[in-house]
């Protein structure tokens, strides 16, 4: 008779014993998480909305193929974005040329050669570089890197692309070295030992075993660092200047997309003016570029990931 009582469900986790407080808590926490989705939506709406206003006055063709960016010329303003994209490209490529080789070699040293004691000191030291505000890098470029460049290349201007690229390269260096080192450290020792057993040297193990095995993580690190360089603002504004032009000479002044946004942002362009609207067109271009890089980085990591147990 007493046996037909229902057996107790011991697996439940309290989720279903809803008092009112529990239900409220659940919705409040969901709302907090949803703020992040709302942020993304708001970014897209704000940028597209402003860009639509901009493109009602400037044609796509002029924007994407024009080679003259002079939005504030009184009689004949011109809105070709290519000089700004070129400026961003110079900084990005230049900084990647510094950060990728140096960062990768640093990661190999930390992961394969350095003793645990050295690694414990060097890795956090390099990560300090990542914590320094970008405005400080801008100051460093102006007060140290540019004067050094000027002693070697007397024609260097006060503002120049090379100084900006060097300082952004230093800034993204810890990103490359840290993330690449994480990827290399997660390669299991059995792979290394197998190679040593076949008579490989440490150099061969590092370059022929560890590097290919952690390639997905290393590539993802590169892409994230490049994406960061594209969006970098204050350091390039101070170092590289405010002269939009397409030049192959890195010792000349240029302007990046972000530096243009700062120029308009500090000038307090009035709402509705073409200058104010151009902020959002440039912002949208920048957002799309970094978004594609970030998605690409996630894809590389999942597509080429080697799973080790």
């Amino acid at each position, binding site marked *: 008779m007493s046996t037909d009582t229902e057996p107790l469900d011991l697996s439940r*986790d309290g*989720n279903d014993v809803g*008092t009112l*407080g*529990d239900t409220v*808590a*659940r919705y409040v*926490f*969901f709302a*907090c*998480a949803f*703020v*992040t*989705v709302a*942020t*993304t939506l708001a*970014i897209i709406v704000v940028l597209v909305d*402003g860009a639509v206003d901009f493109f009602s006055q400037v044609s796509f063709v002029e924007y994407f193929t024009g080679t003259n960016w002079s939005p504030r010329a009184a009689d004949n303003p011109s809105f070709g974005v290519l000089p700004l994209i070129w400026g961003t490209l110079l900084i990005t490529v230049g900084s990647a040329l510094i950060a990728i*080789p*140096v*960062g990768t*070699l*640093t990661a190999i*040293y930390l992961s394969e*050669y350095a003793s645990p004691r050295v690694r414990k000191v060097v890795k956090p*030291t*390099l990560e*300090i*570089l990542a*914590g*320094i*505000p*970008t*405005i*400080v890098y*801008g*100051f*460093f470029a*102006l*007060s*140290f890197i540019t004067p050094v460049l000027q002693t070697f290349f007397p024609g260097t201007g006060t503002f120049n692309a090379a100084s900006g690229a060097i300082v952004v390269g*230093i800034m993204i*260096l*810890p990103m490359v070295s840290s993330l690449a080192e994480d990827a290399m450290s997660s390669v299991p020792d059995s792979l290394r030992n197998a190679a040593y057993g076949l008579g490989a*040297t*440490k*150099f061969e193990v590092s370059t022929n075993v560890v590097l290919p095995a952690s390639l997905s993580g290393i590539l993802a690190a590169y892409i994230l660092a490049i994406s960061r360089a*594209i*969006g970098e*603002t*204050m350091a390039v504004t101070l170092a590289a200047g405010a002269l939009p032009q397409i030049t192959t000479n890195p010792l000349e002044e240029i302007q990046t997309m972000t530096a243009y*946004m700062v120029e308009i*942002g500090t000038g307090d362009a009035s709402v509705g003016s073409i200058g104010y609207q151009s902020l*959002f067109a440039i*912002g949208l271009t920048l*957002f799309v570029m*970094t978004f594609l*890089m*970030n*998605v690409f980085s996630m894809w590389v990591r999942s597509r080429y990931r080697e799973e080790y147990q």
Partner: protein
Amino acid sequence: MSTETDTTDFEFDESAVRRKRRLGKAFLGLCVAATMVGIVALVALLVDVIVEAWGWLTWEFLTYPPSQVVEHYNPANYGDLPTGPGGMYPMIVGSIYLIVMTAVFTLVLGVGAAIYLEEYAPDNTLTRFIEANITNLAGVPSIVYGLLGLAVFVRALQTGQSLIAGALTLTLLILPIVIVSSQESLRAVPDSMRQASYGAGATKWQTIRNVVLPEAIPGIMTGIILALSRAIGETAPILMVGAATTMFAPPQLTDPTGPFGAMPMQIFEWAKLPEDEFQHVAAAGIVVLLTILLLMNAVAIYIRNRYDPRS
């Protein structure tokens, strides 16, 4: 006689081994040199800033409002000034208020979102979308957040170029970092503790409030302080929102819709000016900013070491 040839059968090419050894040594040298690049750059940066700031960072610099005239910043002139020395007092106060408000907002939103994702969220498409979205938000350039703040807070919500607009913009900027680090802290709380709480009859909310959060709070605080130390140095977002420069009075916490200045914005203004003397003033400002950053990081590390059972 014949056994002698047997032992020499194994050909040992010593020059190849030597070459490999040389190659290995050269590669190690290259790697060490690359590692030194980062360290040398860090040392050069710190030395450069300190040398430029030397003699310009005084108590007056910390306690007086800024001045348009560069002579007012030079300690040598303090004695014969009609108006009092120049400094960055209103910007230091502005930055601290900005960070305090940002801390309150991120604490609520960031921890709330992390609790939802770790404790409540079902494993479905929406949850995966939210998490992928957070990863992506962490990679959006900070100046884009500035545009968002300008369009949404300053213009649409009519806050003006105010302290609250700056704080809300910085909150959205660091929210992804805070959520991810808080999630890690919540994940580190062993499931056995949750099960014990359920076993004692607690509901989910009681378990989170009384068991999970107290255990995870040191880790969460460490993550938030580190994120705030990133926010205090951010220039681009508050610049777009319209942080004021050369403000003579500090902002008021009681009036969050008033204008505000902040340290990085003022440093940018000084660094842009052509006069050589202003480079020293900017450097002095940077030393103040880096000192505050250092203190925040020290507090974060202290909390981690003091309360984290794993270390």
